[in-house]
């Protein structure tokens, strides 16, 4: 039996502890520096606030891992203004987090469990996004193994969407994961985590599959469902402003070099060797 912890909180539930968060991570793109909190930064903040026992790690606390990841999104680190607003108000936004409480020794079992977790959430009208957080998954081989086990499942599709040669890493395969939702549509799945090939906007503290579990309001000829379909309480002017801000922010954080690795259709960018080992 593979267990998940369902977190139904808000990052603001931990605002006292997170007020002491100091970002030690970051990157520099086109002369601009972005400071980004790391997993260790969140861990330190929670330890200092007495929420984590000395000697323990944040990964052992499902609720704190979920809150840290939600705060990372809410802080705009994924480059999307819409996601930041949604993550800051997750209950109202219908964004659920389920934390995998173990590793991925049994990749096929975890893949089945993720599928079983998502099916009823697709039917539930109040849920917009299901995030599966995997604090114990940090290496590309383990993630690749899991994705290769999701691939043959009826309601999932994992496809190679290209290979890039990335300086200092080598060949990186761009993997697109889609999940079938209602009315014949397939939702794009966004992937986050600390993997070398990932674009800057995907380098979250923990490995995460963020699954848009609803079809668009009207049928789309390409049968795709996007995160951008989520209804927001914005007028057209405000929506346009957020859209342009997201486009600009994303370009600033990624630069031209990383753009393809962080597009919506790309879930993870992983070392090609890891993917080949998992599928070979």
């Amino acid at each position, binding site marked *: 039996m593979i267990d998940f912890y369902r977190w139904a909180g808000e990052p603001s539930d931990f605002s006292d502890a997170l007020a002491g968060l100091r970002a030690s991570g970051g990157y520099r793109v086109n002369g601009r520096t972005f400071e980004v909190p790391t997993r260790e930064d969140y861990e330190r903040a929670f330890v200092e606030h007495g929420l984590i026992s000395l000697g323990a790690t944040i990964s052992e606390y499902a609720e704190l891992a979920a809150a840290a990841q939600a705060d990372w999104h809410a802080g705009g680190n994924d480059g999307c203004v819409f996601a930041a607003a949604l993550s800051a*108000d997750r209950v*109202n936004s219908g964004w659920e987090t389920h934390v995998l409480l173990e590793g991925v020794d049994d990749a096929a079992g975890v893949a089945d469990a993720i599928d079983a977790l998502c099916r009823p959430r697709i039917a539930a009208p109040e849920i917009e996004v299901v995030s599966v957080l995997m604090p114990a998954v940090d290496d590309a081989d383990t993630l690749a193994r899991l994705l290769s086990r999701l691939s043959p499942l009826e309601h999932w599709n994992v496809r190679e969407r290209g290979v890039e040669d990335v300086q200092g890493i080598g060949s990186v395969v761009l993997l697109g994961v889609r999940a079938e939702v209602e*009315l014949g549509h397939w939702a794009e799945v966004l992937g986050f985590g600390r993997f070398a090939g990932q674009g800057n906007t995907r380098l979250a503290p923990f490995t995460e599959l963020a699954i848009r579990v609803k079809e668009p*309001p009207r049928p789309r000829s390409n049968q795709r469902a996007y995160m951008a379909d989520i*209804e927001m*309480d914005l007028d057209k002017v405000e929506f346009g402003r957020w859209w342009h801000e997201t486009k600009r922010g994303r370009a600033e954080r990624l630069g031209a070099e990383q753009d393809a690795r962080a597009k919506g259709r790309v879930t993870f960018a992983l070392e090609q060797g890891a993917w080949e080992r998992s599928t070979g």
Partner: protein
Amino acid sequence: MGEEHGMSSSTRRRYHRSLYTVANARTPQDLVALLIEEDIELLIDARPAAPDDGRLRSLCADANTYYAVRPQLARLAEHRDAEPDEHHAWAAAMAMRHRTCVLADAAGVAEETAALVGLRLVDLDRSPAPIALTMP
């Protein structure tokens, strides 16, 4: 046609409060024209037999309207002692998210679905006026 959206406790998500129904008494073209007029997003075909489903599917696609076939919804109208099942729950959930119309051969097919989540049932055949304003 009354209210279309109701604010829930959510600050963003809005759920539809009405489920629409229409009898099987029109040509596919006339039916889809009505759906367009009523801004329907999803047509659920609940007829036990639907020989024109291919035509309806095609017309709905052209009208940017979802089309789903669920003959199982007619079961309750035929067996009044039966309980609503997963098909009714599915249709009710869909109707909360999409402006939905149920196409049925018999009266009463959409009632159980609407009742499941407290939707107001609106019969488009009896509807006194379409949404669109027309000049005299």
